[in-house]
């Protein structure tokens, strides 16, 4: 399993790494218990500061998507079959989704266009796409 990040994007690298890992779990490419490479290995392969990778891993740990122990390193702790998420997560998720949908409306997207965009994003989650082919040319 590979991930790709954009070194020229204004989105911070740690955020990109965190988002790509979340997407991989969401697509079902990573399952509960799957090991991730160490912070040092990933930083070495990207040629970036280990602190950047550590920040992404820390965030995922706080969110409960990955866990770490001394024996097996970092591994995936939550996946598509984890079951109903907590009420606190749902409230937070709906809040963030509300902001995103609101942004779409504010930019002039109609409710139909928003539904269509949601449908596309959802179907992208069920068909595992190769992370090396960018979704759209930027």
């Amino acid at each position, binding site marked *: *399993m590979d991930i790709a990040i*954009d070194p020229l994007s204004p989105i911070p690298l740690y955020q990109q790494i965190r988002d790509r890992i979340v997407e991989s779990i969401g697509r079902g490419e990573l399952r509960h218990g799957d090991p*991730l490479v160490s912070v040092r290995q990933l930083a*070495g392969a*990207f*040629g970036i*500061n280990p602190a950047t990778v550590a920040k992404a891993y820390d965030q995922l740990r706080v969110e409960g998507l990955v866990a770490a122990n001394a024996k097996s390193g970092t591994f995936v702790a939550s996946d598509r079959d984890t079951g109903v998420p907590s009420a606190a997560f749902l409230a937070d998720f709906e809040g963030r989704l509300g902001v995103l949908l609101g942004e779409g409306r504010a930019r002039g997207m109609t409710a139909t266009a928003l539904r269509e965009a949601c449908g596309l994003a959802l179907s992208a989650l069920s068909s595992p796409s190769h992370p*090396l082919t960018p979704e759209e040319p*930027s």
Partner: protein
Amino acid sequence: MNIPVLVTMVMTLLILGATLIALPSLSRPTVPLGVSVPSTRADDPVVRAALARYRITIGLLMVIALTGALATLQWPLALAWWALGLLAAGMATFVVCRRPIQRAKAEQDWYAGLTVRLVAPLSPVEPAPVSWLLHLLALGLTLLSALVVTVAFPSLPDPLPTHYGADGVPNAWEPKSLATALLVPAVAVASTVLLATLAAVLARRIDPQPGDGHPGVAKSVRDDQRHLLQRTLGLTNLASAALLGFAAVVPVLNLAPSALSVLVWGGTALTVIPGVWLILRTARLQRDARRAPSGSGPESPDDDRLWIGGLFYYNPSDPSFTVPKRAGVGYDLNLGHPAGMAFLVGSALLVLGLVVAPFIFR
């Protein structure tokens, strides 16, 4: 000056020159002369012209070095200076010839509008298969040499010859003892184990994965290279074990000086073969990569600022001590890493010491 020394000298300069000429063919198509270019520009006329100029200049330098070395045959150390000179001039040629590519890239903004990505494996990567059979054979050969020396110890001459001239005649002796007799076999065993350990460590590396516009092709080339490197390390270990094992049993064999001389020089030539094989196979891999249909995937980012002169990697952020070479096969030091800088300074002092020492202690 005898024939084997002359042949070795000419071979050294020829191999060095040929490697310098082959350098662009051993590198990824997207880093001609160490300049990052998008895969769509790898065959640009500017790139072709720069590569042709580089190759012709190196060819001329090689002729000069060979002529010079033959003209200064009477000084045994001159060869080292001609080889070092050829290397230095080769690097200077590299740095000068890459400039037009850099200029064209900047002026025409080759990366404008292209998608670039850094790619890395998120899941642990299978280690490359280590050629354990070859390493075990090598270890077996060196252990056998130790056994032969131990068994034949009572019949060995006293004093024991410990060093031979290029013509195969001994020129240094030590009082006979088990420690003196087993010194060379011990070095042979130790070097075999060291080389096998190095192979095992390299097999576990996780390297950056270039996109190069065609991530699938770039990745399969990188994987094939990992396998090639392991095979080469195994073959090198076997060849050097054969040579060292033979050196270990020389006092037992009691050969004629001329036969010994031929065998040792032949054996030394043998150890070069795995390296030459690696270079040829790598050139073929990269040629196949060049011929692959162009992809529409993301390009590797322009990382020229991390490579001083396109030759030396300096990236203090990168936790890696070594990175895959940009030009050629194998690994380069990260001079931004404290250990990388220490290693460079250490080896520079060592080379300087070896070149200067003969002038001080004569």
